[in-house]
């Protein structure tokens, strides 16, 4: 296990593997296998006939159209900065293209298995989009590497913030106006000349200061009341020791902090209302299928 906190907690129970990961259904295993299978294709040969880019704005529009055609619901671009790269890794590219695929929020009323299957389906789709988009860029004669669940050297949250796709919420995930926190990422780093998007702030951090719905629904009480500041941005650091007993040491998937986030209510008012009614019936701070 790469995660030392999880490893210590699993070993303390006398097990060798997280119950959640050991119990996954064949469909979910298939999704996981799909991004492992695509990992060797994240990089590849670059076409020696380089396409000249006279208009980076036109190229940016073309790349975004290609990502959308491949299945991305949102696309953003920014310069790759050191804090976006995993510590100890090196990525020499100038730009990063961030793609996101939205989850089907309607699954929340079908229980944790359906939510998990949807999350894994979305991760698998992000892997496909990033892999194919990187291949398209290499075909234009520019180096490009896909970053996804199968292999990555970049950090999703600072990139998504910088490209203007969302703001960091109390539950530790990025929040978008349209999709709430119900979306997953895939990335391509490249030297293809592009035009940057800009961060957009639409009030999430102020909203999260007073909302607390995710905190009230977290069965492990893992979401803190107070925040820290990182580069001027509020971060509520999730306490993994409290999160993992529900999200990793049980068989069922726990995604409650994201599912309860009210930013989804505008696009899915009825489903959100039904889901929160169910949450109320089970007493909020419990895994919902108890």
């Amino acid at each position, binding site marked *: 296990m790469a995660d*030392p*906190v999880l490893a*210590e907690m699993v070993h303390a129970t006398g097990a060798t593997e997280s119950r959640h990961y050991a119990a996954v259904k064949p469909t979910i295993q298939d999704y996981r296998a799909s991004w492992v299978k695509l990992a060797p294709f994240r990089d590849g040969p670059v076409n020696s006939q380089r396409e000249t880019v006279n208009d980076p704005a036109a190229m940016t529009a073309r790349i975004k159209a290609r990502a959308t055609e491949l299945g991305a619901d949102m696309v953003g671009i920014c310069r790759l900065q*050191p804090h976006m790269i995993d*510590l*100890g890794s090196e990525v020499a590219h100038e730009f990063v293209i961030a793609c996101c695929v939205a989850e089907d929020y309607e699954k929340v009323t079908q229980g944790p298995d359906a939510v998990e299957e949807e999350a894994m389906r979305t991760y698998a789709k992000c892997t496909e989009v990033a892999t194919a988009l990187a291949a398209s860029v290499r075909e234009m004669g520019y180096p490009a590497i896909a970053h996804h669940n199968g292999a990555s050297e970049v950090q999703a949250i600072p990139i998504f913030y910088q490209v203007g796709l969302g703001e960091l919420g109390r539950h530790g995930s990025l929040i978008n106006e349209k999709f709430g926190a119900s979306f997953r990422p895939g990335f391509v780093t490249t030297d293809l000349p592009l035009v940057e998007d800009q961060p957009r702030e639409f009030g999430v951090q102020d909203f999260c200061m007073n909302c607390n719905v995710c*905190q*009230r629904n977290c069965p492990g*009480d*893992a*979401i*803190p*009341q*107070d925040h*820290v*500041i*990182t*580069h*001027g941005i509020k*971060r509520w*650091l*999730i*306490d*993994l*020791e*409290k999160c993992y007993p529900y999200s990793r040491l049980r068989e069922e998937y726990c995604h409650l902090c994201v599912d309860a986030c009210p930013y989804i209510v505008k696009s899915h008012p009825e489903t959100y209302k039904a889901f929160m009614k169910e949450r109320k019936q089970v007493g909020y*701070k419990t895994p919902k299928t108890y």
Partner: protein
Amino acid sequence: MEKLYVNAIGPDGNVSTVGLFYSQAEAQKIVDLLRANPDRASYRYEIVEAVRHVLSEKDPVRARS
């Protein structure tokens, strides 16, 4: 488990929290990686115990609502 913050202190004195870590060894490993980064040469780093109130505890009033 221990709970430790790694803080980066910029040349202007501003404190920026790198993250929450669960052992001295894990926190020190991050600090060593950050110190090895020439882009961050002007930063100082500290490892501090995460104060208890920052990490959410069960609030009996809220739990009843």
